[in-house]
């Protein structure tokens, strides 16, 4: 009896709150996200992928007074790689091992929490991780470690639909935050460490029905099929495990792909291996390929090109800016897919020449052998999946760089479905210098490094720039750091007690700006007093 009354009261209260709340998150709101900088509506903040906030309340003058407001503990072990969303005062996020939550973004108190139960024999590469959600209408969406896509009711966390994309037992999983476009939820698969066939696909947000799927290794009769020896296209990897961006003017998705499998083994997949390590321009309605740009042909070093491709406008021209795991920064004309230039942003030894299009060409000496050969960057790359940022005020591109070389070894391996398919090993040379990292500010028109903040050990932190003239990033020693965007001067830092392996974001409630960052197993939120 008491419970029934409580529920009635709760319902009445809920309705009254609901009547004053903002409308649902429509595609139109996602298109015009710049009109509501208080919200963070997609993984990268908006469709351009630039991870920049127009909020300016926290600025270079007052950031020294920034302090922690609340901390949310996910309670999960493992790497916390997610960026949360904020919509009208509510924060939606995922944690390690496919848990999800909605929080009061002012206090950190949970509104609902959800744990997806996955089988014990999942095949994740690199830990039980999830990088976040998409929101559309009255639902939030995420991909799971057993390769399902699920929709939850945004107000209650109740499951609305659950669709299996592919059989996880073959080595597939989802780790990226989906992208909501029109009435669709777009995802890309993980699994390049197994003998998988990568794909990007779209689901109808209301029902979970699949609308299209683009395979990243072409089948017989399709263009590009000839870039794979024999049957290697069937197990060639080329996953698509980082969130892409959407260009409304051309109605295209720009999405990046990862390494060919097996990662260090030339002999088992001769050829250029399209569309591994590519930037893909896909028609949003059909998933049809309009054009591609391949960063690393026939990659033998596990240098996934799964970095968020950032749409930038400079001197009246439209580009994609991309700092690649292979150590080169690429500026690409996104109206044509043609390379403008490529230039190293970290130590590279694998290329001495460029092809006619200006792409670095791998030397024969960089190809792994059984005994192993030292190549820079190492297997973790000169950067990795951590989000870069583009600041339209300073016109600088910020990227987390890594200075490490590895010895790459290759050996024959028979592919067995559902078992790791590397054909390889990599490890530091015995006399290797300790490796380190840096946050680097690049001029995207020249690739020149304007400033850098040296990290003691390499960082896995993404970067946020804000209209307050600030850049936020984190380090592996647990610091959250604010810098002056124009100079790289450190203005503030806070020790969060756990390594940062995620990207920061910003939001506002009732005119008060907050910055949020995951570290260890917790999500930290900061604001001015």
């Amino acid at each position, binding site marked *: 009896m008491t419970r029934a009354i409580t529920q009635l009261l709760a319902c009445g209260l809920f309705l009254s709150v609901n009547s004053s709340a903002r409308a649902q998150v429509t595609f139109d709101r996602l298109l015009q996200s710049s009109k509501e900088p208080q919200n963070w509506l997609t993984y990268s903040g908006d469709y351009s992928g630039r991870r920049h906030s127009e909020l300016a309340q926290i600025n270079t003058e007052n950031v020294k007074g920034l302090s922690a407001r609340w901390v949310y503990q996910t309670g999960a072990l493992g790497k916390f790689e997610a960026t949360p969303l904020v919509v009208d005062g509510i924060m939606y996020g995922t944690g390690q091992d496919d848990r999800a939550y909605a929080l009061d973004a002012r206090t950190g108190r949970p509104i609902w929490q959800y*744990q997806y139960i996955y089988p014990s024999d999942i095949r994740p590469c690199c*830990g039980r991780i999830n990088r976040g959600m998409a929101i559309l209408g009255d639902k939030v969406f995420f991909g799971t470690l057993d390769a399902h896509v699920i929709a939850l009711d945004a107000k209650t966390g109740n499951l609305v639909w659950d669709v299996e994309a592919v059989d996880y037992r073959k080595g597939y999983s989802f780790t990226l935050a989906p992208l909501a476009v029109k009435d669709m939820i777009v995802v890309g698969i993980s699994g390049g460490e197994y003998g998988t066939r990568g794909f990007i696909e779209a689901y109808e947000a209301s029902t979970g029905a699949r609308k299209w799927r683009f395979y990243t290794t072409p089948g017989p009769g399709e263009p590009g099929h000839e870039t794979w020896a024999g049957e290697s296209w069937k197990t060639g990897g080329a996953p698509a495990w980082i969130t892409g961006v959407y260009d409304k003017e051309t109605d295209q998705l720009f999405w990046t792909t990862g390494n060919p499998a097996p990662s260090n083994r030339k002999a088992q997949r001769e050829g250029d291996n399209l569309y591994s390590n590519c930037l893909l321009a896909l028609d949003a309605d059909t998933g049809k390929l309009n054009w591609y740009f391949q960063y690393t042909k026939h990659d033998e070093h596990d240098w996934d090109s799964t970095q968020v491709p950032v749409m930038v406008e400079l001197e009246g021209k439209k580009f994609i800016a991309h700092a690649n795991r292979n150590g080169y920064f690429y500026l690409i004309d996104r109206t044509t897919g043609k390379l403008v230039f490529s230039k190293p942003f970290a130590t590279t030894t694998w290329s001495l020449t460029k092809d006619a299009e200006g792409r670095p060409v791998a030397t024969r000496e960089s190809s792994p052998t059984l005994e192993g050969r030292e190549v820079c960057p190492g297997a973790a790359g000169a950067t990795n999946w951590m989000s870069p940022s583009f600041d339209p005020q300073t016109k600088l591109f910020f990227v987390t760089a890594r200075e490490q070389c590895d010895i790459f070894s290759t*050996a024959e391996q028979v592919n067995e479905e559902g*078992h790791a398919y590397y054909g390889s*090993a*990599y490890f530091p040379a*015995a006399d290797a210098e300790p490796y380190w990292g840096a946050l680097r500010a690049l001029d995207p028109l020249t690739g020149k490094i304007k400033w850098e903040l040296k990290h*003691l*050990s390499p960082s896995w932190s993404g970067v946020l720039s804000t209209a307050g003239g600030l850049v936020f990033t984190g380090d592996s020693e647990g610091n959250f750091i604010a810098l002056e965007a124009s100079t790289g001067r450190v203005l503030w830092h806070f020790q969060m007690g756990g390594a940062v392996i995620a990207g920061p974001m910003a939001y506002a409630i009732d005119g008060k700006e907050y910055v949020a960052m995951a570290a260890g197993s917790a999500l930290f939120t900061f604001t001015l007093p």
Partner: protein
Amino acid sequence: MKGKYASRWHFLGAPSGAMSHIHLYLVASLLFLMPIGAFRTHAQETNPFAGDARAARAGESQFRANCAFCHGLGARGGGRGPDLTRAQKRRGETDAELFRTINEGIPGTAMPQNGTTSQGVGMTAEEIWQVITYIRTVEKKSASATAGDAAHGDKLFHGSAGCFTCHMVHGKGGRLGPDLTNVATARSVESLIDSVRSPSLHLATGLIENTKEFPQEYETVTVVTGVGQTLTGVTLNEDNFSVQMMDTQQQIHLFEKDKLISFKKTRESLMPAYDANVLSDQDLQDLLAYLFKVSAK
């Protein structure tokens, strides 16, 4: 209160409203623990693939992908992980013990739980058994790695060689250098010899930053404090903004870097190099024999 809070947790397939709040809370708590518990693959007592050459080949591929970063190609050890070709293994030598070590890791060391780092992809129970099958094929059957006189090594360690002034064994000794109680099972013989003959050749290195639980690398640090005092010692920990160090008198000092007049760090070890004039090859063998003896306890 607990029930009300827990009812907000949602689980796949949990019928809402069908259970009392208290029951839901209990079920919710159990389910929430599942993803951790469920991955503790249950260890059999014996290896189902023992002696199977095909499983050993598959295990070698798994080893290269998941283990070689620290344990080296061919399992011969690197500066980071033990030489696994030695039959003697500190954490247990039986199939079941090896399975447990690989699957659960060794808490408090750089040996991670199966599948928790970005090194490798994590292994199924079948793949772990394949790796164990592979390790058995590369193990050397000789019982002892060195032929020295452990009793004489003990005397050197605590006497003329002076090791104990900076190193502990079984809780006794100095603090400036690493505790050497387990070092003989944690490093290859070549690495141990290098560490005595040329201490600066391989300072300890952290593993990878995500699992850098013990970041101490014994780098030599010299600071000039805000009041002009110069201190030399080893770093205990450090980030971009602060440093925790032990000076040569084994005193701990804590500094914010921006308050120091100068901060210099090198990878030249504070430990003197013990060349053959200071420590003969036979004495070195005796010292290693002593370290092997204490690490076997």
